[in-house]
């Protein structure tokens, strides 16, 4: 087990930030950690990094108790903080080199690993440049290089793609996949649900200091009764159309717009055939139908009652 947390409790005064949380992360997985603001994600990560004292429970990383083997464990963990943690007045090389040195790399080996890390994030050609001249995406990539230069077994990435362009985001996500293919376990938190859906092999949804749902993307979607939504392209749908469709027993909700009709129904009880008949019977021309599958966002919303990006 890369991470094994048992009955973890962390309080800030009277507030319970982590509420008897247990969690296992196996080697080689990308674990997506989702949760609304204040759910306890950062506290959980800080606890795993030994940055905060907990009041109860036990954390084991690489099968070793964090409290006892902290110094030993540190060497195998890389951290990509949410906010950029780079020195703007050091070159890209110097930034990575500093942390290579702090993790005990020396001489030729250090030089090779620094260049390897820079090459991995696509910054080797800019190694002599200062980050103040970098774009947001390049800074994010440097932020990652500094965390992986010592080739850790576990990398914790706290929202590594915040505030960057789609191209840089894709580059970072691709690098996360490659790192994982190399056998590195990754804990990945993000506000971007689709990122987590796309890369995580296992996802934990956190709320009020607890993991309220845990599983693969598919397993999470199956956890609850979902609604499906059908979008029907109809020119100027009128109230009589809405009235008729609302009478279908499996329809939960309906809304009209200029040229669209959106209908929600319980998963597995599709009323599409009946709706198409009503539309054509009333003389409307149906130009298209699309059905949207439930996504992680809906899982999250259903489980926590909050949107992931409500901040």
């Amino acid at each position, binding site marked *: 087990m890369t991470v094994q947390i048992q009955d973890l409790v962390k309080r800030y005064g009277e507030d319970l930030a982590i509420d008897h949380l247990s969690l296992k992360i196996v080697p080689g997985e990308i674990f997506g950690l989702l949760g609304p603001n204040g759910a306890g994600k950062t506290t959980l990560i800080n606890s795993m990094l030994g940055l905060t004292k907990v009041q109860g429970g036990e954390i084991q990383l690489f099968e070793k108790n964090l409290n006892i083997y902290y110094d030993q464990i*540190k060497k195998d963990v890389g*951290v990509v*903080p949410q906010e*950029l*943690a780079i*020195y703007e*007045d*050091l070159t890209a090389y110097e930034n990575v080199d*500093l942390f290579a040195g702090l993790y005990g790399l020396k001489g030729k080996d250090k030089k090779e690993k620094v260049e390897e890390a820079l090459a991995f994030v696509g910054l080797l050609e800019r190694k002599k440049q200062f980050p103040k001249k970098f774009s947001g995406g390049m800074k994010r990539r440097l932020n990652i290089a500094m965390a992986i230069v010592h080739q850790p077994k576990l990398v914790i990435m706290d929202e590594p793609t915040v505030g960057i362009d789609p191209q840089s985001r894709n580059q970072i996500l691709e690098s996360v996949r490659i790192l994982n293919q190399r056998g590195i376990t990754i804990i990945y938190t993000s506000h971007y649900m689709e990122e987590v859906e796309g890369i995580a092999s296992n996802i934990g949804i956190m709320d009020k200091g607890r993991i309220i749902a845990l599983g693969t993307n598919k397993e999470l979607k199956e956890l609850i009764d979902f609604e499906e939504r059908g979008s029907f392209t109809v020119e100027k749908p009128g109230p009589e159309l809405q009235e008729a469709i609302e009478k279908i027993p499996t329809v939960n909700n309906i809304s009209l717009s200029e040229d669209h009709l959106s209908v929600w129904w319980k998963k597995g009880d599709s009323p599409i055939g009946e709706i198409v008949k009503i539309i054509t019977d009333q003389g409307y021309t149906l130009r298209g139908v699309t059905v949207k599958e439930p996504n992680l966002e809906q899982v999250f919303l259903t489980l926590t009652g909050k949107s992931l990006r409500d901040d």
Partner: protein
Amino acid sequence: MKLGNIAKVTFLRRIRDKQELLTSIFLPLLLIIILGTALQGNFSAGQLGDIPVAYFSEDSGPGGEAFEDFLEEEEIEQWLRIVPVDSFDQGLALVDQRETLSFIYLPEDYSESISRGEKGTIEIRDAGLSELLPSIVNNIVRSYTQGGNLMMALLAMEDTSLNEMEGDSSDSISGVMGEGAEGNPRDSFITRNTLDGREEQITGLDYYAVTMLVMFIMWGIFSGAQSLTEDLFTPMKTRIYTAPIGKINYFLGKSIGVFGTFILQILIIIFFTKWVYGVQWGESLWPIFAISVMLSFVAISIGIAIGLLAPSENASATIINGFVVISTFVAGGFFPLEIESTLFRVLRNLSPNYHAQQGIFNVVYGGSGGVIGESILRLLAISLVILVIGFYQGRRKVREDF
């Protein structure tokens, strides 16, 4: 070495910071020349002179007479206002009551000692009101004793004429035999060794070179504190704390890096002012380096303490600004101060600037080695106390941070 990595990076970042370079090196050099030139008048005999000095001699021999003649020299009278007293105790009492700044005492055996070729000692007591004026008194007396002891010893050797000494390579003897060799030998060495000569006279540049060096080392607290604790206020904190380097090693590495830049600053200021401005830094620069290095240590300690104790970077900057200005002011860093108040003396004794300035002035103007050592020890004590408080409170802060 992990500590070396931190030190190297800290040093590099500080010397790459143009604003830091401007503040720590160019600004002091500029201020020294501006203040030293503009306020030169404060350092003339007219301004600094008339220093009240109690005087009592129990020596009735030629050495004592010669010294009294020396004190009556016109050039000496520009600086010292001699108050003759009738006893040793009365002299001490005048100093204690702050009626005179110093007390010069010639013991009974002064002439006898130097006529035997031994070292004649003139005792000086001062009230500890400032470092500058007693330095002048010390310097004047030293100018006499160095030449006088030698002269009397020479005179005691019946068959030795002064003219025979003219070719001697010794600095003291060539000083004695300087410009007045044809006339009264005593006059000649007095003239050569009083503050009248450029070599010995304190100038505004000399004064402000010392006080500005000291003040800007102290200003280094600001950037030093920033360098030392900046990571505590940034996301870098997470990265540093999760790296396998202990907090003590981390701060030690940071301190060494900051310390390196202080040394660079000290060397540039001292050598630039010595060679370009012609500032007197005394015969040996080592004690000055030692004091400056100790002051840097104090500055770093204060920087760490304030950085760890202050709730934010802004609060830290405000505390440092206030501290450095007050510390410089009470030490007489902006202009020489002679304030006789207990509160002022307490404040001044708490000022690291004061102890550093006192030490450096004693080096430059030939004060006692004891005072120099005392200054260094006081600076060391101040920094250790501050470091202990800073680290104790800092550990609590670090624990509460997350």
